[in-house]
């Protein structure tokens, strides 16, 4: 009966021209988290972050699906702060094997380990944690958000190319800051750069008043360096560092020159079209998590289009195969790393006004693809869950 209904619906949607057939329900599950306060309220995080990216990807899929008789649907489930996302995930998995997840790393693992999730396809669009791409990977969990390591590798390629060989680092104290700082250290070692000094930002003063007085003194102790790295993923203090440093030096990382999965200044490779479609839909600029959610649902759509099925095992096999390629508006095809389920992708290095460069930079070679110079390569990843 259900199939008959779908068949009729398919006929109506495709005006009788396309074969009916494939039903692709997707659930976007978001675990809301309270954000710690930050010094400035200049850049609030939009409430629809991620979700609007998924909606745009849905619209793209539906247009293609309309010609092929593939019917995509997206439902959003939001778990408020403090709520338990696991029952919500269980309910979602009863309806579909395709989930787009926006939740902290621990929640992602709890969902991926549910008995109902075995054989499902879960997309991580929110956590950059290295462990999820290494020892804590899961066979059913793919990652469309770049890892911390991919972003820090992108930045270090740039620093190396500019011969900014000596680095200093200021890191915040939040878990995201610590994880990004860890990735920066690892990338500096990977690309042969020297981290000469490190400091932790643990002030509780209001830097809007004091930046010009505090930051020069604070950075004086860093000694000599070429590039100052900032690990401040909540955007708490970092915005007050540039131009206030003791030495006149460029700033990069969470502030200044930022390696980002996506940014409003990306305009080449047809990206201007994606940006304008997103702005029409959401009334704001597209952010990295929006892009990750868009890439997740578009990857699913691409796999359904090419395989003409919504069988999760077939979709998963296709996504992880050499045949899969996603046109992601970054100048080259995107694909998944078969060893840890990470979407390999170029990383733009951006300022608020322009894209300064896009990694991988020319000259960083790799036997498979230059994209694998960013993030954990097969020998570096401790992931064994994927084939």
């Amino acid at each position, binding site marked *: 009966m259900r199939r008959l209904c779908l068949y009729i619906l398919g006929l109506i949607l495709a005006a009788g021209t396309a074969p009916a057939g494939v039903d692709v329900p997707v659930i976007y599950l978001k675990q809301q988290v309270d954000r710690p306060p930050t010094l400035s309220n200049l850049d609030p995080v939009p409430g629809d972050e991620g979700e609007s990216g998924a909606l745009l990807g849905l619209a793209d899929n539906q247009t293609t699906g309309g010609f092929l008789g593939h019917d995509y649907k997206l439902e959003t489930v939001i778990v408020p702060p403090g709520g338990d996302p696991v029952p919500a995930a269980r309910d979602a998995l009863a309806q579909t094997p395709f989930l787009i997840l926006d939740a902290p790393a621990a929640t992602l693992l709890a969902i991926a380990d549910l008995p109902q999730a075995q054989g499902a396809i879960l997309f991580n669009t929110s956590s950059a944690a290295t462990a999820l791409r290494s020892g804590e990977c899961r066979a059913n969990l793919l990652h469309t958000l770049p890892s911390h390591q991919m972003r820090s590798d992108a930045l270090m390629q740039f620093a190396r190319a500019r011969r900014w060989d000596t680095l200093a680092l200021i890191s915040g104290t939040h878990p995201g800051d610590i994880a990004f700082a860890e990735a920066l250290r690892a990338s500096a070692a990977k690309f042969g750069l020297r981290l000469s000094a490190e400091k932790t930002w643990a002030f509780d003063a209001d830097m809007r008043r004091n930046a010009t007085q505090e930051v020069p003194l604070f950075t004086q102790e860093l000694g000599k360096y070429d590039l100052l790295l900032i690990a401040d993923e909540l955007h708490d203090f970092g915005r007050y560092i540039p131009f206030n440093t003791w030495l006149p030096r460029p700033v990069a990382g969470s502030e200044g020159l930022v390696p980002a999965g996506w940014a409003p200044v990306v305009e080449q490779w047809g990206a201007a*079209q994606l940006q304008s479609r997103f702005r029409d839909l959401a009334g704001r600029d597209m952010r990295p998590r929006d892009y990750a959610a868009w890439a997740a649902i578009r990857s699913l759509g691409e796999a359904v289009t090419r395989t003409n099925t919504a069988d999760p095992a077939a979709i998963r096999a296709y996504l992880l195969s050499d045949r899969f*390629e996603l046109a992601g508006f970054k100048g080259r095809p995107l694909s998944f790393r078969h060893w840890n389920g990470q979407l390999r992708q170029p990383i733009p290095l951006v300022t608020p006004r322009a894209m300064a460069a896009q990694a991988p930079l020319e000259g960083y070679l790799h036997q498979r693809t230059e994209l694998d110079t960013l993030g954990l390569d097969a020998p570096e990843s401790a992931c064994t869950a994927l084939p």
Partner: protein
Amino acid sequence: MKQLLLIPALLLAAPLQAAEIWVTNEKDDTISVIDIDTLEVIRTIETGERPRGITFSRDYSRVYICASDSDTVQVMDPETGQILHDLPSGEDPEQFVLHPNDRHLYIANEDDAVTTVVDTETRKVIAQINVGIEPEGMAVSPDGRIVITTSETTNMAHWIDTETRAIVANTLVDSRPRHAEFAAQGSELWVSSEIGGTLTVFDVATQAEKAKIEFAVKGVHPDRVQPVGFEFTEDEETVFVALGPSNHVAVVNARTFEVEDYILVGRRVWHMAFSPDKSLLFTTNGVSGDVTVIDVARREAIKSIKVGRFPWGAALRP
């Protein structure tokens, strides 16, 4: 020395008024006009915002320009460079094709997932056809019965019946189809896929895939070999294919579908146009802001001509 030999040969063959190549400069809002005899830019003409697709009317008395960011198709007098009027094109026109009836323009509206049909005489939209996301490549069969729109994000060629103005078939191609052309007296349809890195050849009668052409440029990763614009020689025996950021043009045997040669050109090569006798080929190189002149017989680049910023489309004015 080579050039010295070439130029007198061209002068002998040239008609009274020298032929020209018109190039749209996407980020300068201008057209650069190249004199084919001297291989110099002789005029720069202002256009609307972000000019991309460019084509002449059959008698060359009008030139149509997709001014993408002005959301219009401009109609220009090529003698004076004056804009005569705008055509209602739908939003963000990128590429178009003029029907053999010399009257109907089929326009891809990149931001709108629509193909718009405009009557250039009445200056009215006569149809809008829903297609895939980001329509771009446009082609018309020699008999005028079929128009093709390719959509970049939907990854399809949409086959439009020009009588009913309805889609009669949709065929999947590799990622990000950019350009389409009919060949072999209209019996084949060729479509380039930028991200897929391939050219797909369809049999028009059955809409079945007949061949798929792949490219391999020495020293360039396959991801960077991105076919976009392409053009056939007069005899339709050979096709020249722009390979985007690989900075090469491929020479493909249109009968055997084999790649015979790669020619190094400027950076991010987009589209191209032939001289009237098809002895020279002019490619627009988006990133390097120049046009490469290729000697077709020798399959060699012979000159680079600086034009405006981000040259995109090219059209011959004989």
